[in-house]
């Protein structure tokens, strides 16, 4: 039975939800309430908030995220490849396996080299 294997995942999801919501609800009911307005001011090391609140950040972070998703998908494709290693080696098709995988890894490496040469990986320029 396939679906029952996932029952544990579902149970754990609800347990996690229970812990999260339960702890916050308990804190809400049990917690002290000695409120004064300054408690709710944004944290700024004690001084009033300065500067633009919605400042923009470096586009470098975006480049990191893009590199991550593209390489992540390549890693996801490498896992099926790695899974077939032993069966294909048994079937005496090791050469085919190596060619396919190394071409893919070569393309992956080209991407990495491109990023490196272009300076996308240098953080602090």
């Amino acid at each position, binding site marked *: 039975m396939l679906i029952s294997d996932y029952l*544990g995942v579902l149970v754990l999801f609800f347990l996690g939800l229970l812990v999260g919501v339960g702890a916050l609800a308990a804190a809400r009911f049990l917690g002290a309430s000695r409120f004064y307005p300054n408690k709710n*001011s944004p944290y700024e*090391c004690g001084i009033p908030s300065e500067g633009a609140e919605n400042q923009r950040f470096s586009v470098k972070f975006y480049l990191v995220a893009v590199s*991550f998703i593209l390489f992540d998908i390549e890693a996801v494709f490498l896992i099926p490849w790695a899974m077939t290693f032993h069966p294909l080696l048994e079937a005496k098709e090791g050469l085919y396996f*190596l060619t396919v995988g190394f071409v893919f890894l070569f393309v992956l490496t080209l991407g990495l080299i491109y990023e490196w040469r272009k300076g996308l990986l240098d953080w602090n320029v």
Partner: protein
Amino acid sequence: MNETMIAWAFFAGKILLLFGLAFGFIAPIMVWVERRVCALIQDRYGPNRVGPLGLLQTLADGIKLLLKEDLRPNEVRPWFFILAPIICVIPATMAFAVIPFGPPTTLGGLFAEPKRLQIAELNAGFLYVLAIGSLGVYSIALAGWASNNKFSVLGSLRASAQMISYELAAGLALVSVVLLSGSVDLVKIVESQTYLWNIFPGFLAFLIFLPAIFAETNRTPFDLPEAEAELVVGYHTEYSGMKFGLFFLAEYVNMTTVSALAVLMFFGGWEFLPFLPWKDVGVDVNGLIPLFGGFSLPAVIIPFSWFAAKVAFFMFLFVWVRWTVPRFRYDQLMSLGWKTLIPLGIFNIILTTAVIVFHRMS
């Protein structure tokens, strides 16, 4: 009791054991261990007043967190601010569904055939842990965005960029484990290293994996997002009371999960010693250990305890490193991830295939 009842009881028992251990035992004990070890390294006493050796300190802290006022600063985005800590706990809880904590066993003859000590037997194995682990980024990103504070946003951007970079490195290291073991199923991976632990052919992979798990759990030397000297405490600057407590709890649960993953992937899981598995020592995992008074325990408790000891060692390593290794600078962190670990990961995959093919040919 008929068979279905036993099966359900077994299922519930597995969940209760892991869930109880992670939230009720490991996380509180680790908080205490962390403070005591820190004190030991810094030549202080550490918490020693509440209970024997200060062991009840965590309980006291928990009660304190519960009794704190539930603050919600004016500038925050209301729903997402509460959502972030909840999202943080859920993946941490879900991630250990596929972690096996002992060999498949009949529990001393209770079952006709060996059953796995694993909450969910998924086909995709450790990929599930990676998938669920990658969701931790959301809680951090949301926490920063919802706080609407410049320290929080910068801290969460840093934390998420760091987590995703090192997740990639960990993924590449694990591809070579799949090459070595020929499976993604954690039980099969452990069975494939009965004699030869993956740490020997996959030492390079482990060298990539270790910093990656440190960075993924945002622990020193990679705790840049929290860098209290420059960013207050990063993404949870605005969080206090129990909301902060949930982030804190999830960090320790995540540490447990990744430590267990490292043990299962590279250190033979519950096996005794490299080249010397339990069955060569004479321990039958399906047998019983007689105790006094006619009682007996399933022998699977021995490999389980051994596995727990290995995980505990890794947890200790986390604490030890935290108080001895200085923090990286952010550009060093990024260049370690992208310019060292990831090229090394690709090289390692090629090396591993070459080693296995060479081994087969000879």
